[in-house]
């Protein structure tokens, strides 16, 4: 059904092949998880497998690591064909494997050091070498101060780094990491990629890493895109971007809610891939270059001023969705042609008012005087690293947790005195989706209908509405466990909406959902907020999702440290820290060193590209190629990149961490 996979040939200078798959296939109970997959990974390469949940990444990765049997095709690792259990044993001394699940391969009761020692002894690392390696790895990962701490008391990011140390302690030639960054906040994630990249370079190790985050693609040398058990394409990130025909166009349809909705409907009639993103609309135009694409969009929206429409650089996620669509693997987003009658009687009235909300757990202050307001019809995003206090705030507002101080009103009721009144008026969806997986779609809806006291007739009509809006038609009698993640997520949202709440709380609602499912989900949220006037408070680790929000609050150590619109936050970042410049050099390693020697100490490598921040963007863009040429690095190009929400997040949080560290030092 799919077009033949496009696999780029081995890059020059990388002749040795570490992994070779030919016609690889894996079957579970008669269902193909992976089929007909060809792949090569070269020595010294950081190869990324990207794809949604259930694409077959884990099956492939486990088979290569020699821990999963497979049915079809051949696999060769270090030239050893993996034909039997015994053959697999022959490669395991050169392999380091980290299975999926944050810290799942570690032992929670053991300390950091005991964990490392266990892996070292299991791998027969000699005593003499162990001390030195351990010291080095602990220093790089900055885990040295915590060697005596039990693993279960580490933060998510630290667990992940400890997992990496344990995987590398026997100096494998190939490390295999299965979704190492899932569930980790952006700062820790970026830190992880930098450390991994450095270790691979210094030790000349090859790596095979899978991820569900499309935006991490730029960290890899080469990327394989997987979908539905097949490898759609493999190549350098740049090559992958070029695979999908067309260009991405951004439209600012106007501040009025009606304007944006009208533009959305008009665009959906003409183009296949149209999504609302906060106050903007993104259109993927399948033909033409940037200029032609922008013109086509302008023609579709003659009422708009021309400057409201501009071509923008597509994210890999846009490319991925376009690629799937162009190859007929995914349905385009449907237009909800009949928006429900506007119900915006009190749309602009404040729906959530948090005033100086504080919560202490013993001596620890989880939330510190948190204040913000969310109006009806607004999508409000709460961002922050693991443990920043987001969940505490949501728990207080939903009435699960009593605040230690402060006050708040939710859906017009005081949260201290009218707990039950609030509970009847809000919807809540957690990252676990809170569905009863052993019940069917219909039974889940009926259950929540009953819990909220709806009568039979009301439940029937809501069931109708949910299966329509969440596109669950035909799945009513299917058990929730058998639904794909995307559908499951929309069902959970449907259940949270069964009693037509005026305020909706979403706690990391999209973990584990693939990009296409995520788009459909956000489309639903867009309609809820714009047409039904529902106020939505959402937390997420996916910074690309933060872009969907009307307003954002960034939390750090229990406090709200910034509150603005996404574009406001990006502008503030450029104002405070300068522009983001991306440098493409033929020899990125050497170029990086040259830059660092020439006053750009903060320059960092992302995959094959170097990034720096510059306060004189114009001047630097002009002078950098020359500077590098003099340093022996000709042929360099420099482009200005708009900062992403992730850049904002990482920059802000890193600065706050540094400030805190300084404050502690001076206090001493």
């Amino acid at each position, binding site marked *: 059904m799919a077009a033949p996979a496009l696999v780029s040939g081995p890059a020059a200078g990388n002749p040795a092949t570490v992994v070779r798959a030919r016609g690889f296939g894996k079957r579970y109970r008669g269902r193909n998880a992976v089929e007909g997959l060809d792949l090569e990974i070269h020595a010294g390469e950081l190869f990324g497998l990207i794809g949604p949940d259930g694409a077959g990444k884990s099956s492939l990765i*486990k088979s290569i690591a*020699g*821990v*999963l049997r497979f049915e079809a095709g051949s696999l060769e690792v270090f030239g050893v064909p993996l034909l039997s*259990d015994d053959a697999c044993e022959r490669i395991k001394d050169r392999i380091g494997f980290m299975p999926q699940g944050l810290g799942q*391969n*570690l032992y929670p009761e053991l300390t950091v050091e005991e964990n490392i020692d266990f892996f070292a*002894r*299991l791998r027969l690392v000699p005593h003499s070498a162990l001390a030195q390696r351990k010291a080095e790895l602990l220093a790089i990962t900055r885990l040295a101060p915590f060697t005596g701490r039990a693993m279960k008391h580490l933060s998510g990011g630290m667990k992940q780094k400890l997992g990496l140390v344990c995987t590398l302690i026997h100096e494998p030639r190939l490390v295999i990491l299965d979704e190492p960054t899932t569930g980790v906040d952006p700062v820790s994630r970026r830190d992880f990629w930098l450390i991994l990249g450095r270790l691979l370079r210094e030790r000349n190790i090859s790596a095979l890493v899978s991820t569900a985050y499309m935006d991490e693609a730029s960290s890899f040398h080469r990327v394989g895109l997987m979908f539905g058990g097949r490898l759609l394409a493999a190549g350098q990130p740049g090559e992958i971007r070029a695979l999908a025909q067309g260009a991405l166009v951004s439209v600012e349809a106007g501040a009025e809610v009606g304007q944006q909705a009208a533009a959305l409907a008009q665009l959906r009639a003409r183009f296949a891939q149209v999504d609302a993103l906060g106050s903007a609309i993104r259109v993927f135009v399948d033909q033409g270059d940037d200029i032609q694409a922008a013109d086509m969009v302008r023609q579709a929206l003659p009422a708009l001023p021309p400057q409201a429409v501009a071509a923008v650089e597509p994210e890999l996620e846009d490319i991925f969705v376009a690629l799937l669509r162009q190859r007929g693997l995914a349905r385009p987003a449907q237009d909800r042609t009949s928006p429900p009658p506007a119900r915006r009687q009190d749309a602009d009235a404040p729906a959530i008012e948090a005033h100086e909300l504080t919560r202490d757990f013993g001596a620890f202050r989880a939330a510190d005087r948190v204040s913000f307001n969310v109006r009806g019809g607004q999508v409000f995003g709460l961002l922050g690293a693991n443990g920043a206090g987001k969940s505490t705030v949501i728990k207080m507002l939903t009435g699960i947790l009593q605040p230690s101080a402060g006050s708040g009103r939710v859906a017009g009721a005081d949260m201290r005195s009218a707990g039950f009144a609030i509970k009847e008026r809000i919807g809540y969806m957690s990252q676990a989706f809170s569905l009863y997986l052993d019940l069917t779609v219909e039974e889940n809806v009926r259950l929540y209908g009953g819990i909220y006291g709806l009568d039979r007739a009301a439940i029937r009509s809501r069931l109708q509405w949910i299966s329509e809006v969440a596109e669950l038609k035909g799945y009513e009698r299917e058990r929730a466990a058998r639904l794909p993640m995307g559908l499951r997520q929309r069902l959970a949202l449907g259940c949270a909406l069964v009693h037509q709440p005026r305020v909706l709380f979403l706690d990391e609602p999209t973990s584990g959902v693939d990009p296409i499912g995520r788009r459909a989900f956000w489309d639903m949220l867009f309609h809820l907020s714009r047409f039904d006037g529902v106020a939505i408070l959402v937390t997420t680790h996916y910074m690309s999702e933060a872009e969907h929000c009307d307003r954002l609050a960034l939390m750090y150590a229990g406090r709200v440290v910034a509150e603005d619109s996404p574009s406001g936050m990006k502008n503030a970042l450029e104002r405070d820290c300068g522009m983001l410049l991306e440098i493409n050099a033929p020899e990125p390693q050497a170029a990086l060193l040259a830059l660092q020697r020439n006053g750009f100490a903060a320059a960092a490598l992302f995959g094959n590209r170097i990034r720096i921040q510059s306060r004189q963007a114009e001047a630097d863009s002009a002078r950098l190629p020359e500077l590098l040429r003099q340093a022996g690095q000709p042929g360099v190009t420099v482009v200005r990149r708009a900062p992403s929400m992730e850049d904002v997040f990482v920059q802000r949080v890193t600065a706050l961490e540094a400030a805190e560290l300084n404050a502690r030092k001076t206090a001493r």
Partner: protein
Amino acid sequence: MNITRINAVAYKEWREIVRDRLFFTLAFVVPAALTLLFGYGLSLDVEHIPLAIIDYDHSALSREYAHRFSDSRYFDLKGYAASEREAGALLTAGTVRAVLLIPEHFGQRLQSGRAAEVQTLIDGTFPFRAQTAKGYVTAINAAFSLGVLADYLAQARGLSPADAQRALQTLRVEVRYLYNQSVKSVWSIAPKLLMAIMMMSPPFLTALGIVREKESGSIFNIYASTVSRGEFLIGKLLPYLAISSLNVLVLWALACFLFGAPFKGDPLFFFAAAVLYVGCTTGIGLLVSAAVRTQVAAMMGTMILTVVPAVLYSGILIPIPSLSAAASVIAHLLPGMYFADIVTGSFLKGVGLAELWPQVLALATYAAALYVAGYLLFRKRTAS
């Protein structure tokens, strides 16, 4: 086989067990607590059976007859009932478990040299207790009857009462209770408790320990490393074997010193056999863990496989010869029965390897079969 790797796995497992309070409690406190509880609480002696008496006769002889019952330690007189109806209600309510009914003319008939009939109503709800009660009644009645008969004979034949008694009692039955002279049930139970508890606890610990690693995903460290199947299984099981062997010592000490059960056998032989037995039951846990994926399934599996048989079929509450044919087959398939022989042999009989080698051989075969099966079922590459 590489000692360092076995060591690494064993040491890691040990640290984990020690740090997990719930697990640690389960491993040491529960067996000892269960022994204490059952050792003190599980007395199978049937004494102080609550008794009601209906005496329609009200003669000196009927009172004497009744006293024979109420004065024995086997019966506790709860009171006299006026009618059978009343006594029946007491029996139904469970207030008394036996009723002695002495009819009218009881004394008169005996004095006139005729046989008198009395009735005992026994609550059969608990058949074993009813059996025992019947035995007591028969014995007390026989003693009384003999006295009456002797009196009558003395009168009729002009013998002295003592001679008459002797004439009827020429046969003495000398009973020697072997191995357990005072027939204290705690003696016979404490050693078997050791067997039963060591049947339940090691499989639980082992199955949960291995399946926990499967469930959390850390088993992939093992799959993906160079450690061999044998090394992993040995390293993984060693701590559990050690804990269980230590428990054997603890329970042994409890049985000997707290319950005062005599230990007559060879300690060395006994502990060697106990380690072999613990190896067997640990192996059951290994087998269960190979077959299931979740901790809950592991719990249920070991429960059905070990707890129920440990209680019912291992001879602790019910002697093996009393089992039905099917149950007896099941009993022979489990290691508990063989070790029960070794325990009672070592504790009460003082016999050793010379007598018990068939049991030891059975345990060894059992252990070998379990470990080979566990080894074959454990694969470093999974199918899914």
